[in-house]
Structures are given as structure tokens and as C-alpha cells.
């Protein structure tokens, strides 16, 4: 029996590993995605003051520290039972919108986009952000850099630091906004909208106009029918900062909608002895293994799943693109809402629609008259006990759950993070890509690229998922013959 090991250079550094086993016919018998590391934030946070969590847990991930900062801050609201005032909520959401713009920009242009901009078969040496700039031109590259720059400026302005912000407090925010800052952010938001529309046009021209890419997006290799999770507002429209968590089934029917504090009623996490990362699933459906369909509790929490779980977008331009997305991909409306799109590579498109929404939302908030109120830091006197907070991280619903003693010293911490939600679907996508490519023992030269693409659309952040890994996943594919001899080694970094 032949075995293929897709191994992050891990034996050297340990960041993630795929084991593919072939049967006697040389077809894929099974594939395992292993996560070999653990940092243990849930344990070493115990004993710390709860109010430090926004500044401790952002170190789970330097790519999306704002998401952990915000989930932690919202968990503190609940822990201390204090409802933030309107200004605090909007200030936080404004900060969070700027973060979404920069984060989704990075993924499209530097991480996921190169596969489309340069093509899945491009030279790996060119398949990076510099290659993208060479292809689309330095002017566009400079626009990407400028977009990151202005939004990180907003993050630093409102959060105190450009990476690992510090401003979150129970019921509050440590810094109010000045009118000068507001005006500047308003201008940035307008530029962001232009940039998002430009990016959607680029996607249209490069991908949707290219028949090969469209066929790839629609191919069965990159399709899974699962449940979809996302946070929605009172009108069932996408919201990243706050709302109820909604889960819809493969045919679009609503399964559950719940406040994050009820997460343990709906989500459970399985442990497998071969990975340090747990597998969440929907309790009411049950764990049926790594399989698709209505009877399997596997769910997905990504830009695609947020679109699928919502009835629409809360801003006008994003809504137009939302409709175009479903119409183009052949989704039909049932009971007034589009049926889910199951093509995983469409996640890239969904991400750009979210980019436009974040930019539009940022402008709305920057123009809101309450945003510059100075009353943002309440004195909190309540006795803390237990609190749960969640946000939509770019890579999925992120939940922080804290329990403390009466002095607010943590006695228990549980974190269900963005990418962890997607562990089972990512594992399934990897297996399906392997099955699609490996037939009769022939390992296609395209295997690595295709496996990467099966991963990449989820924008997996193993740093978040394991509270241990960096945002990039270096892979090494080792192919062994039936006697266990190493035949070939190929390596690649995938993010």
C-alpha cells in the first residue's frame, strides 16, 4: 500500500500534516489532516485578570488580533453584565470594519488571489504578492499597499496599536474619537469603497471572464454540501460585529439561530487522537464523520457560509453584488432567499463582496453623528461571574467564554475560533482534492497546487485554530512506494 505524506516541513517545525493512504488500486483510501501543535491559551490564561484577555488573546493570532481583541471585549461586556452605549458599539464596529477591509485585501491579493491572478499552474516562485504586482502592474500593487496602510492607520488610531490593539474594556473603549479623526476616517472609507469595487471588477475580468477558471470553480472537486454558519442582524443580514448566530442547512433552510452565550447547546467539539485540533459539529444533527449532507453535523464558517446563512447584505452596493453572486452561480430563490452556493472556490468572490460591505459599513459609521461622543469609558462596579462573546472573524465565527471568581480572576476559559469551525470541511476538501487527482497510483503534477487551492479558499489560519500556529501552513508532500521508500519530495508553503 502506498502512502503519501503531505507534511509541513514539520518534522523540522511542526505546523500541519496531511497523510494520504492509497488502496491496492492506487486510489485514495483515506486522508488525514493533522494539526501537530498546541499553545494552550485556555490554560495559561487561568489566573489572569479577565480584563487583560483582549490584550492576551490577540496574541493568538497576529494576522487577526482585532478579532480576538473584539471577541474578548464582548465577552467582558457579558461577564460584567454591562451593555455598551451606542457610541462604544459603533466605535468598535468602525474599528472592526477597517480591520475587515485590510484583512480581506491581504487574502485576496497576497494569499488566495495569486492562484487566480497568476493561474493555478503558475511557477511557484512567481505565485506570490510580488508576482501579482508584476502581473497586474505596480500601480495596482501600490493601491493594495495604500489600502493596507490607511486601514492600519485607523486600527492604530482607534485601537492604540496597528497590531495587537489595546483599547477594549468591559462595556467600553479606552479612547474616544476626535472630529479630525472622524473626517480622516470618512475619507479613508470612501477610498475603501472604490478599492473594493475595483477588486470586484478585477475578479470579474480575471476569473468570471475565464472559462477555465469558471469550470474550476464549479467543478465537483471543490464542492461540498454542508451546513453554513454566520452572524446576522435583526433582518437576517450579515453583521461582523454583533447579532445572532444563524445556521442554515445544505438546502438553505434555517436550522438554528441563537445568541452566542448558548453556543454549548448547539456546538460540540470532538477529539481525535491523531490531532491537537478539535473538530466542532452541530449537536442537533450529530457527528457522522467527515461526510457531506444534511445528516452530517459538519458545518462551515467562512465568507461563503456567511453569505449562505444570511438573507442579504446590509449595504446597497454589497447587496447588488450579493444578488449577482447567486444569480451567476445558478442559485434559485426559495421562500424569498437564495439557496446556498456550495462551490468552495466561490469563497474568494464572497470575500470580496464582504470587503465591499465592510467599506460601506465603515463609511456609514464614520458619518454617524454619535461616533465622536466622548463618553466611552464607563466605570464598572458589577461583580463578574461568567461571560461569552462572539464576533465574525474573517475566517469564521469566533467565540470566547470566560468564568471568573468574584474578583474577576479567570477560573475557566474556552475558545472556539474561526478556522477551528472549518477543520472538518477543510479536511474533507483536502481528501476530495486528493481523490480527484490521484487515480491508479498516478500522482498528478497538479496535486500540490490543487490541494493548496482546496485549503486556501477557507483562508485557514492555523495560528488561530490551534492557538499555536502561524497563519501560513508550509506543506511537504512525501511520496512513498509500497515498501515505504521515499520516491519523491515536494514542498510548498500554503497559507
Amino acid at each position, binding site marked *: *500500500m502506498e*502512502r503519501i505524506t503531505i507534511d509541513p*516541513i514539520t518534522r523540522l*517545525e*511542526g505546523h500541519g500534516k496531511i497523510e494520504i*493512504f492509497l488502496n491496492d488500486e492506487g486510489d485514495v483510501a*483515506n486522508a*488525514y489532516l493533522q494539526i*501537530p*501543535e*498546541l*499553545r*494552550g491559551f*485556555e*490554560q*495559561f490564561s*487561568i489566573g*489572569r*485578570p479577565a480584563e*487583560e484577555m483582549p490584550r492576551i488573546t490577540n*496574541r493568538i493570532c*497576529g*494576522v487577526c*488580533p482585532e478579532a480576538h481583541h473584539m471577541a474578548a471585549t464582548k465577552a467582558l461586556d457579558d461577564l460584567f453584565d454591562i451593555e455598551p452605549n451606542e457610541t462604544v458599539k459603533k466605535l468598535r464596529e468602525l474599528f472592526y470594519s477597517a480591520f475587515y477591509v485590510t484583512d480581506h485585501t491581504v487574502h485576496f491579493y*497576497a494569499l488566495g488571489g495569486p492562484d487566480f491572478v497568476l493561474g493555478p499552474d503558475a511557477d511557484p516562485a512567481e*505565485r506570490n504578492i*510580488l508576482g501579482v504586482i508584476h502581473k497586474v502592474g505596480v500601480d495596482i500593487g501600490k493601491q493594495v*499597499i495604500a489600502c493596507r*496602510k490607511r486601514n*492600519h492607520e485607523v486600527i*492604530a488610531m482607534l*485601537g*492604540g496599536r496597528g497590531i*495587537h490593539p*489595546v*483599547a477594549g*474594556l468591559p462595556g467600553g473603549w*479606552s479612547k474616544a474619537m476626535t472630529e479630525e479623526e472622524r473626517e480622516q476616517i470618512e475619507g479613508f472609507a470612501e477610498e475603501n469603497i472604490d478599492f473594493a469595487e475595483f477588486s470586484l471588477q478585477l475578479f470579474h475580468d480575471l476569473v468570471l471572464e475565464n472559462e477555465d477558471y469558471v469550470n474550476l470553480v464549479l467543478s465537483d472537486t471543490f464542492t461540498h454540501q454542508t451546513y453554513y454558519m454566520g452572524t446576522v442582524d435583526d433582518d437576517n443580514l450579515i453583521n461582523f460585529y454583533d447579532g445572532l448566530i444563524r445556521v442554515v442547512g445544505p438546502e438553505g433552510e434555517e436550522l438554528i439561530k441563537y445568541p452566542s452565550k448558548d*453556543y454549548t447547546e448547539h456546538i460540540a467539539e470532538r*477529539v481525535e*487522537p*491523531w*490531532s491537537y485540533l478539535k473538530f466542532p*459539529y452541530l*449537536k442537533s444533527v450529530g457527528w457522522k464523520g467527515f461526510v457531506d449532507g444534511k445528516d452530517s453535523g459538519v458545518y462551515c464558517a467562512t465568507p461563503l457560509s456567511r453569505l449562505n446563512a444570511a438573507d442579504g447584505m446590509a449595504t446597497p452596493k454589497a447587496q447588488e453584488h450579493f444578488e449577482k453572486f447567486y444569480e451567476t452561480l445558478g442559485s434559485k430563490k426559495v421562500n424569498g432567499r437564495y439557496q446556498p452556493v456550495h462551490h468552495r472556490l466561490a469563497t474568494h468572490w464572497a470575500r470580496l463582496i464582504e470587503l465591499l460591505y465592510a467599506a460601506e459599513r465603515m463609511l456609514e459609521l464614520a458619518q454617524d453623528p454619535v461616533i465622536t461622543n466622548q463618553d466611552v*469609558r464607563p*466605570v*464598572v*462596579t458589577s461583580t463578574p461571574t461568567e461571560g461569552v462573546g462572539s464576533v465574525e472573524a474573517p475566517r469564521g465565527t469566533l467565540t470566547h*467564554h470566560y468564568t471568573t471568581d468574584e474578583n*474577576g*480572576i479567570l477560573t475557566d476559559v*474556552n475558545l472556539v475560533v474561526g478556522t477551528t469551525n472549518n477543520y472538518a470541511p477543510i479536511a474533507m476538501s483536502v481528501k476530495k482534492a486528493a481523490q480527484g487527482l490521484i487515480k491508479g497510483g498516478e500522482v498528478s503534477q497538479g496535486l500540490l497546487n490543487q490541494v493548496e487551492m482546496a485549503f486556501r479558499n477557507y483562508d485557514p489560519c492555523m*495560528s488561530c485554530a490551534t492557538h*499555536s500556529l502561524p*497563519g501560513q501552513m508550509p506543506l*511537504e508532500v512525501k511520496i512513498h512506494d509500497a515498501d515505504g521508500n521515499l520516491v519523491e*519530495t515536494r*514542498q510548498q*508553503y500554503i497559507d
Partner: protein
Amino acid sequence: MTENGKPKLAMYWASSCGGCEISVLNIHENILAVDEIFDLAFFPCIADFKVSDVEGYPDNYIDVCLFNGAIRNSENEHMAQLLRQKSKVMVAYGACSHVGSIPALSNLTSREATLKKVFLDNPSLDNPHEVLPQTSVHTPEGELTLPEFYHTVKKLDQVVDVDYYLPGCPPEPPQIWAVLQVVAGALTQGDPLPPAGSVVGAGNSAVCDECDRVKHEKAIDRFYRPYEIQPDPEQCLLEQGIMCMGLATRSGCGALCPTVGMGCRGCYGPPAGVEDQGAKMLSAVASVIAAGDETMEEDELETLIQEAVDTIADPSGTFYRFSMSHSILQRVKDANGKGAA
């Protein structure tokens, strides 16, 4: 890779969050200049180089390696040794490799407690058979293996020699760009490099020296949690009883956190000449506590000071928030006084 005479730059993450890589990207348009000055030799975050490439390089092939992340397991250590061997200049980049940073808070607990908490004892688990990840598992198809992680989180210079330290969680972009320019000048024009072992990209004094908040000789009788008080916008936070590590932390960030009304947590590590950041902070705290007056008896004074100290939440996890690996203690020992590895 083409041999064009440009200096070779590497950046690698061990047990890290990726924020150090993002901090480099946050030099924004200057990243294009870095691309012009340097040839990337290894940079998993943004380029597709392989470890086998690194293994194939001759010793000292890489001119500068920016190594971030703590040493959490044997693979982190192996990569540190490999990159040390291949690099002329090894920079401990960011707080994890400099002093241990947040991951080193693990040194206040144990490997066993961590596994128990994550896999056996939390509210969303479905693990009735108490399955724990195993270093070797036999599946129907074959064996699957996982590495083991260390009991103690180490900083980079506890496993390899380090030439320079670039502090911060993460380092601030203007400091990063300044350091890269110095390095580029040394490599391309023969400009002098700082003495080996130097801390670069930071000041030598304390964060307080770059903080605009007004300092008085005001003594305090208790500490406040950051949500218990609305701090005066102008006055020193520590003097208002809000824990701020500025006195015990190296300058270089520009006092970002105190500027937005939050106390410094010490991510730049101890100031020049200070070995143990937590011990330094303890003496700083003692100096701001109201010492009573001459009419007080000694036991009365002691009570006063003890009462003030008792209002500090989690002193060990606060004073060593970022520097546990760098502390004299390094980790909490077990009953037998053992704790290493």
C-alpha cells in the same frame, strides 16, 4: 534564486502568532525598497521558499535572519539551529524570541494541565472516552504521528547564539525600517554594525521617558483595575493607581498604550542594564505606594503597604506578562524544584 550580489534576507516564525510578519508588511511602501535591496532567501509568510532550499544553502549563506516566535517544541529548536548555521547575522525578532512573550505565560502552568484543560475539561467538549492526542496512533490505514511539545517555553538565545535583539510585540514599523536601513548600509556600503549582542530598534531608557503623561511625586494607597476608574487624560497612569509597566520596560514604542489610556504591559522587555523585568517593576511599585508618615509604627506601615500590594491583580502574570522566559525564575517549579524542559 539568481546570484545577483544582493544581500540575502530570511524571516522565519517558530511558535508565534504571525504578527511579526505583519509588522514587516506594515512598513508599507518601504517593503518595495526591501525587495530592491535584499534577495529573499526564506520567508514563509510571503514567498514560496522551502526548508530543503535552506538545508541546501552553504553555511552563512543568509546574511540576515529575522527569527521570531518562541521555542515551544523540538521542531522550533531544530529550525533555530538550522537557520543559525546558515545565517551570518541572527536577529531575535519580536518579544517571543527576545524574552518569551505571551506564550511563555505557559511557564506559569504545566504541560499536563494544558492538555487536561484543552481536551478533557471544557464546556464544549464531546470526549466521553477521554481521548488525548497521541504521538503515535495506528489507524486502519497506517501509523499517524504527532510531535510532543516542551514543558517550558524558551526564548531564542536559550537554544542558539543571537547577534541582535529587536524587541516589541510586535516591533513598531518605523523601528523595523530604521534597523533594515542600518543593516542594508552595513551589507552594501560597509557601514559599521552595532556591537554583537545589542538590542536594536529600541531605546535604552524606559517607556516613561517617551510618555507624554505628566509625572508628579504622588503616592498611591491602592491600585485600580483599568475598568474601575476613568483616568485623568494628562496624568501618569501609575500615579493614578492604574498598573503600568512603563518604568520597567525598554523605550522604543513611543508609549503607545499609555497614550490611549491603557497601562503598558512590558512588551519591549526590560530597559538597558535591567536583568529581570518583574523584579524591576516590583521595586517601581514599592516606590509609588504611599509610605505613610513618621508618626506611624512600623507594623502600621507594613499593613499599609501590604494592603496596597494586595490590590494588584495577578502580580506574577502582570510583571512577567512578556518576559517569563527571560526572568531569573524562567518557570514555576514543581514540588521537587524541577521544571525545565
